[in-house]
C-alpha cells in the first residue's frame, strides 16, 4: 500500500474560459497536516471541491488509501471518510446546531428521529476538542465563529478521518486561531489526515508538515514547511514579491468630523436583551484613518447601519461636522458628507441588475447634474461613468453598459469605491473594503483609501483582518460586544495585545 492516504494525480478541471486546475498532483500522507497555499483564484477551492465530490475532474485520477475512486458526490466522499468545512458555511440557518450536525446521517428508529444518542455524542465531541457550542441554539442566532465550530463538529460526528479545512481561520480571533491550531494538531496526532487551505503563512508555519503551493491553477511545488522560510513560500504563492506596506506620509490630524457618543442599538429580536451596539463612543478626525478592529459579530454591522441611517439607534448621539444627525435620513447623511462602502456589496452596494453606469450614479442620480424635471440625463450619466471607469480602472465587458452582476468582485468593489469617493464627502466609512478581493484589487483599494486620508478626509474602516488594520490604521479602535473598548496607537501595539482587546480580556478608557 502506498504511503499516501490521498492521491490526486494529474487533475485538470476546466470551467468555461478558465483552467481552474491544470495537471495538479496532490499527495497527502496519513496523519499529516498538509497545507494548500495559494491566492484567491489559484484553484485551491476547486481542487478540494473535486476531492469532496462537488465537481468532477475533466481528467486525472483520485486514489484514497491506495484505491482508485470516483467521488461522485459529498455522500460518496463521506463514505470514504472525507469531511470538509467550507469557506462559505453550508448550514441550514433555521436549524438548531444539533439538527445541522446530524443532517444527512440521522439515526432513526421506526421512522422517528433519535436525537438523544446524537446529542450525547456531540456533547462528548465538543468537550473533547474544546469546541463549545450550544446544541439547541439556532444557526442563524450564533456567530460565524460558532458556525465554524459546528462545521468541524459535523466532520467529527461523521467519524471522518480525512478532514479538509477551507480557510478556517478567517473569522477567528488570534486566541481562537491558537485553539484551532491545537485542535488540528490533536486530530493529526490521532491519525486523522488534514488538508488545510489557507493563505496565512504563520498558520502554515505553525501546524503544517508539508505544503503544496498553487498559482493560477498550476502546482508550483511541494515544500517541507520546516525547511522553508516564509519569504520563499510567499514568493511561490504570488509569483512576485508583494509589498503591502502602504506608504503613508505623516499628516497632522485635523478637526473632528464624526463624533459618536454612547450609541446604542438594541437587538430587535424578541428575547434578546443584549444590545447589539452598547454605548459606543469614539470620534474620527480629518486626515486620519481610524480602524475599528474586532471579531465578527461584535456589533460592527449595526454600528455602521446606525451611523449611516440604515438602522435606527435607540439612544446616543451622532454628530457629523458639528451637526446632530442622529435622526436624519440615509439620504440626508449621504449628501451631507458620509460616503459608505458597505460590508455586503451585493446586498447594499450595488443593484446587480442595473448596469454599471446606473450603479455609478446610485447616490447622485437625483442631483441637477444627472436629472432635469425628473428625467434622467442619460448622456451625462454615460459621460460621467466613462470618466470614473477610466479614473478608477474599473474593468468590465462592455464599459458602462455592463450589467453589474456579471462583473468580477474586485471590479464591483472598485465601482462602489469610485462612486462613494468621487462625490463631495468628508467622511468615508468602509466596511471590510477588501473582502473577497485578489491581490491586485486589494492594492488599488488601499491606494484609494489612503488617498482619501491624504486629501484631508476622515476615513473610518471596519475590518476583521488584523493585517489590514495594521497596514492602514493611524488609530485603532477596538469593538467588543458593541462597545469601543480600546483606542490604540498601531505603532505601539502588537497583534497579540490587540487580540486581547478583541477577545474582551483587556480594555481601556476611550475618551473623546
Amino acid at each position, binding site marked *: 500500500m502506498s504511503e499516501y492516504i490521498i492521491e490526486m494525480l494529474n487533475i485538470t478541471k476546466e470551467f468555461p474560459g478558465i483552467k481552474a486546475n491544470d495537471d495538479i498532483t496532490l499527495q497527502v500522507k496519513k496523519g499529516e497536516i498538509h497545507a494548500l497555499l495559494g491566492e484567491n483564484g489559484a484553484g485551491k477551492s476547486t481542487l478540494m471541491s473535486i476531492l469532496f465530490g462537488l465537481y468532477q475532474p475533466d481528467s486525472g485520477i483520485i486514489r484514497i488509501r491506495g484505491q482508485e475512486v470516483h467521488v461522485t458526490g459529498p455522500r460518496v466522499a463521506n463514505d470514504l471518510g472525507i469531511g470538509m468545512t467550507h469557506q462559505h458555511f453550508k448550514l441550514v440557518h433555521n436549524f438548531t446546531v444539533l439538527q445541522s450536525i446530524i443532517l444527512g446521517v440521522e439515526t432513526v428508529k421506526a421512522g422517528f428521529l433519535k436525537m438523544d444518542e446524537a446529542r450525547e455524542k456531540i456533547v462528548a465531541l465538543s468537550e473533547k476538542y474544546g469546541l463549545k457550542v450550544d446544541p439547541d441554539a439556532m444557526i442563524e442566532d450564533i456567530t460565524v465563529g460558532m458556525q465554524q465550530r459546528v462545521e468541524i463538529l459535523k466532520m467529527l460526528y461523521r467519524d471522518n478521518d480525512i478532514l479538509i479545512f477551507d480557510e478556517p481561520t478567517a473569522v477567528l480571533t488570534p486566541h481562537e486561531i491558537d485553539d484551532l491550531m491545537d485542535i488540528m494538531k490533536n486530530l493529526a496526532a490521532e491519525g486523522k489526515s488534514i488538508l488545510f487551505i489557507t493563505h496565512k503563512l504563520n498558520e502554515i508555519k505553525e501546524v503544517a508538515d508539508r505544503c503544496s503551493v498553487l498559482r493560477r491553477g498550476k502546482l508550483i511545488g511541494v515544500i517541507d514547511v520546516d525547511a522553508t522560510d516564509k519569504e520563499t513560500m510567499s514568493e511561490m504563492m504570488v509569483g512576485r514579491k508583494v509589498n503591502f506596506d502602504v506608504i503613508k506620509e505623516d499628516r497632522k490630524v485635523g478637526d473632528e468630523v464624526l463624533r459618536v457618543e454612547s450609541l446604542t442599538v438594541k437587538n430587535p429580536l424578541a428575547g434578546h436583551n443584549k444590545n447589539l451596539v452598547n454605548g459606543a463612543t469614539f470620534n474620527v478626525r480629518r486626515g486620519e484613518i481610524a480602524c475599528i478592529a474586532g471579531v465578527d459579530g461584535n456589533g460592527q454591522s449595526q454600528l455602521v447601519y446606525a451611523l449611516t441611517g440604515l438602522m435606527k439607534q435607540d439612544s446616543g448621539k451622532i454628530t457629523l461636522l458639528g451637526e446632530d444627525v442622529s435622526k436624519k435620513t*440615509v439620504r440626508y447623511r449621504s449628501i451631507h458628507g458620509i460616503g459608505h462602502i458597505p460590508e*455586503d456589496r451585493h446586498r447594499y452596494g450595488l443593484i446587480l441588475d442595473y448596469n454599471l453606469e446606473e450603479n455609478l450614479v446610485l447616490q447622485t442620480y437625483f442631483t441637477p447634474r444627472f436629472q432635469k424635471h425628473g428625467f434622467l440625463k442619460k448622456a451625462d450619466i454615460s459621460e460621467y461613468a466613462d470618466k470614473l471607469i477610466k479614473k478608477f480602472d474599473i474593468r468590465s465587458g*462592455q464599459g458602462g453598459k455592463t450589467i453589474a452582476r456579471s462583473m468580477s468582485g474586485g471590479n464591483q468593489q472598485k465601482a462602489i469605491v469610485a462612486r462613494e469617493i468621487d462625490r463631495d464627502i468628508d467622511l468615508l466609512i468602509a466596511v471590510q473594503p477588501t473582502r473577497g478581493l485578489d491581490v491586485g484589487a486589494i492594492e488599488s483599494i488601499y491606494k484609494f483609501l489612503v488617498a482619501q486620508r491624504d486629501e484631508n478626509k476622515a476615513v473610518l474602516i471596519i475590518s476583521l483582518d488584523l493585517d489590514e488594520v495594521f497596514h492602514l490604521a493611524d488609530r485603532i479602535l477596538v469593538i467588543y460586544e458593541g462597545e469601543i473598548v480600546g483606542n490604540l496607537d498601531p505603532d505601539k501595539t502588537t497583534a497579540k495585545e490587540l487580540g486581547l482587546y478583541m477577545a474582551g480580556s483587556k480594555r481601556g478608557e476611550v475618551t473623546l
Partner: protein
Amino acid sequence: MKKPVFLEKLLKPKDRTFGTVLLNLNLLSALMAIVVGMLFGLIIMLISNPSQALGGFGAIIISPITGGPRVIGQVLYFATPLILTGLGVGFAFKTGLFNIGASGQFTMGGYAAIMIGVYGGNLGGFQWVIGILVATVAGAAWASIPGLLKAYANVHEVISSIMMNYIGMYLVNYLIRKTCYNSLKNESLAVMPSANIPKMGLNHIFPGSFVNGGFIIALIAVAVVYIILQKTTFGYELKAVGYNKDAAKYAGINEKKSIVYSMMISGALCGLGGALIYLAGTGKQYTVVDILANEGFNGIVVALLGLSHPIGVALGALFIGYITVGGFNMQLYDFVPEIINIITATIIYSAACALIFKGLFHKIFKKKSAAIDLNGHPIENLRAVSDAPPPPEPQDQQKKGGER
C-alpha cells in the same frame, strides 16, 4: 464551429433600449411558448373532434387576419383592456411586486366609470374623460391597500391583493344592485352615450368593429409606462427598489413609499382598463355574477408573455385578442364553446410559461457558447450569471507576501 449570426445576436445581453428589445432571448421564448400552446390546442382539437380539427385550427390561426378590417378591429377591441391590465401587472413586476389583484382593481375602475357614465350627464363632453380619470383613481386607491400593507406591515402583496379581488367583486356587485341596477338583465344600467369614449377615427379604418378610442388611450399608456420606467428618476427609484430593496435603502430611496407608489400605478392602469371596457360604447354592461373579472388574470398572462416590457405587453395583449377572435370563428367548425375556451385557455396557459422557455434557451445556449458569458467574460462561477446572488463571502483574503 462558428455560431450563426442570429444566435450571436440573441446571446447579446438584454439591452433595455426600445430597438433591441425585440431581438433577444425574450422574444424567442415568448414565441416558443405560443407555438407549444398552439400545438397543445391542436391535440385537444384532434381528440375532441378529429374531422373538424384542422379547419378549426386554421380558423384560430388564419381567420383574424383574413377576416378584413372589421375582424382586425375586433382583435384591437379585445386587446384594449388587456393592454392596460397587462401593463399594470407588468409595471408591478418591474418594480418587484406581484400584483395578482389586477382583477379587483379592474372591477373597481369599471364600477367608477359606470357610475360616472350613468349619473354624470351634467359633465357634458367631458363625461367620458372624467369617467376614465375617476376609474384610474379608483383602481389606484384599491391597489394602495395591499401596497400600504406590504410597505408598512410586511404583509405579502400576493395574499392581500388576492383577497382584495374578492372584496372588490362582492362590493361592486352589492353597489351595482344598490346604485345602478338593471334588474331585468341582472346587470348595470346602460351608460349615457356621451360617456362613451369617442371612436377617434378608428371606425373609419375598421368599419363595423367595436374598436374605439380606448385602443389609442391604451397605446398612450404603453408609451407613458415605457417613459416612466426607462427615462425618469422616479422609474429608476421604483426599479431599484424592485431589484434590491436593501441597496435602494442604502441609496437613500424611501423604499416603503416606492412600494406604495408602484402598487398604485399598477392599480391605476388596471382601473383604467375597467373604464375602457365599460365606456367602450359597445353595449357591454357589468353583469352581476360572482365571478372575478377575467381581464385581471389575463393581464398576468400578458405581462408574463410580454416579459413585463411595455411593448411586449402590448404585443402579448394583441395576441390574446387575436386568439379570442379566432376562437369565435371556430364555432363555424362545430366546436362547442367550452372546447374553444379550453383551447384558448391552453394557449394562454402555455404562453404564461414563457419564462420556462427562457430558462430552457438560456441553458441550451450556455452549453453551446460555453466560453463566455453574456458579457464576454469567462464564466468561472456560473452562479454569477444566474439569478441568485452568490452567498456572502467570509472575510479572508489578505495575500501578504511577507509578514510585518
